[in-house]
């Protein structure tokens, strides 16, 4: 019996698929969790239920999903203040993240850290750092420990394009290269440092990749909106790190659909730019990819329903949760659990 040509092309595609259906569904689900949780965070902010600041990753989901899905359980993530996505991508419950954004007792750090400092040690999320560049050297240190103890975990450090112009970036890159550390540096180049276009304030076109050669590293620029490309790149970088071949620096091209933070309406964007990038929306463009690999509309719709249900349930749980309790105010300043600085 002859297959029709379209079906034959599809079987050949599936037969040669290095990612596989289960992982592709996981990538889609992870991106969707981030997308819907971030949109919900924005809605809750408009209702004055998310306090403080928040930096959303809407439009950048493929990077968090792709790098996290390629990790092993013991691998470590070091994130920035734009870290909700990377925290969710490691499997931290949506309720824990939204609870922290809403500064409730059910939050990941019970309201002591806030949106910019999401940390979940059991998930390998070793912190979200709000001082630009600070966590690149810290990720080097975690990688040094792995190297020293002969452990095979990789430290993965996410940061924005703006970070490439701060000293700690350059110190960390050189340090990781000379010590051949198992660390992967992931630059999410979303075109804007905060409000200013990165190209206006950087001597080279590609703020991370064009600096790689200064540290003896390969120049890597990828489409950060394609989860498959991100996933494959992550796998290669982790394999290199685990093999003892040292660090990688990966520049992922992407676009932030919202402003820098909740205070920023992003009026500095030239007309048409946002619309152009919407055509490359990492979540929406992944649906035809799933279909191309034979995944049915029903399966996709079921994931969409499930994730929305999870986000709704998390939202309700957070709305019903108590505010951050006063009795944790002065705990865990020091390792004895107290804030005692004198006898």
């Amino acid at each position, binding site marked *: 019996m002859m297959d029709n040509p379209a079906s034959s092309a599809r079987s050949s595609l599936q037969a040669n698929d290095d990612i596989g259906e289960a992982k592709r569904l996981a990538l889609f689900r992870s991106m969707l969790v981030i997308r819907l949780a971030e949109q919900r965070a924005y809605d809750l902010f408009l209702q004055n239920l998310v306090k403080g600041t928040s930096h959303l990753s809407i439009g950048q989901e493929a990077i968090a999903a792709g790098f996290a899905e390629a990790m092993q359980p013991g691998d470590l993530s070091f994130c920035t203040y734009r870290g909700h996505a990377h925290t969710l991508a490691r499997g931290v419950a949506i309720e824990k993240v939204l609870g922290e954004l809403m500064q409730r007792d059910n939050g990941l*750090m019970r309201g002591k850290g806030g949106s910019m400092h999401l*940390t979940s*040690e059991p998930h390998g999320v070793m912190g979200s750092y709000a001082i630009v560049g600070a966590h690149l050297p*810290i990720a080097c240190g*975690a990688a040094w420990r792995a190297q020293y103890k002969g452990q095979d975990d990789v430290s993965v450090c996410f940061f924005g394009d703006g970070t490439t112009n701060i000293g700690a970036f350059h110190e960390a890159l050189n340090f990781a290269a000379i010590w051949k550390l198992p660390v992967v540096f992931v630059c999410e180049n979303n075109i804007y440092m905060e409000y200013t276009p990165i190209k206006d304030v950087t001597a080279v076109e590609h703020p991370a990749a064009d600096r790689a050669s200064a540290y003896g590293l390969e120049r890597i620029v990828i489409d950060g909106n394609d989860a498959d490309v991100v996933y494959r790149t992550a796998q290669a970088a982790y394999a290199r790190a685990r093999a003892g071949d040292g660090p990688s620096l990966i520049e992922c091209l992407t676009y932030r659909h919202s402003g820098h933070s909740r205070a920023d309406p992003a009026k500095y964007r030239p007309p048409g730019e946002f619309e152009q990038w919407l055509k490359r929306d990492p979540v929406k463009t992944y649906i035809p990819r799933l279909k191309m690999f034979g995944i049915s509309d029903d399966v996709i719709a079921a994931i969409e329903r499930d994730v929305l249900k999870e986000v709704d349930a998390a939202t309700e749980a957070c709305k019903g949760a108590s505010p951050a309790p006063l009795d944790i105010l002065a705990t865990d300043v*020091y*390792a004895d659990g107290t804030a005692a600085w*004198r*006898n």
Partner: protein
Amino acid sequence: MAELSYRDAVARGIAQEMARDADVVFLGEDVAQAGGVFKTTVGLLERFGPKRVRDTPISEQAILGAAMGAAMTGLKPIAEIMFSDFLAVCFNYIANEFPKHRYMSNGQTKCPLVVRTANGAGSRFGAQHSQSVENWAMMIPGLKVVAPSNPADVIGLLAAAVRDPDPVIFFEHKSLYPIKGEVPDGEIVDQLGTARILRPGKDATILALALMVPRAVAAAERLKAEDGVDVEVVDVRSLVPLDTQTILASLARTHRLFTVEENPRLCGWGAEIVSIVSEEGFYDLDAAPVRITTPHIPLPAADNLEDAVIPSVDRIVETVRRSLAS
């Protein structure tokens, strides 16, 4: 018992801890092959090898950041910042990262590390290599801060700092490196948060730290010999945790309080102690506490100018004498 220099005590303290615990690692600029610019770490590379004793580039942020990442994930790093003035270059780690992560994560993470650094004047290096900056560290919640004044304390407090589960800033004094003192044989482990009465007395209490301790002791001896005044000298040793009980108890015996501080006057460590004393020891005071400090100026390089601003034995004697007489 053997006589050891403060300089050699640093290497002995580090070696004691590295020999005890394979998770103790040491990194800094010129610390391994060169043995340190102050020769405080000679022999460590040879004894413990290049995997544990590591030279770094001139990258203070990388040094402290790497120490933190290693500490968070299971090592016990000792990081050297060559001159304490350079803490300003990597102050983000001192002020924002080491001391806050445990709190911000609601107790999920840890940061057991030691930053050793050469503090203080006497080498005529000028305003960017001679400062006493212990008060920069003291003001930050989440840090511990110690400053030993003698070789035995260098070993004992360094061991306590390495074994402590919190980040400790360890201020060595450049001008104390050549001084010698008796050091017990075998392992020495002291306790953070403990002041020590070096010289008991009944007429006044002098609190001092690091290089100011031998000066305070010398001043006390002169006041005894020349004036018959019996001064108690307390080596504060640990700014955080602060041993306020020893300080308040001393004041309750002597009723007069002096601090001798090398840090510049504004917000120096003695200001906090005087504030505590004014709230909790007010009725023990027979007169206002007196702070003897470096003035609120950048440090000059010239030897005569530097000597004129750092508290000296003469200045301590004259200040105490004048104050007790009034």
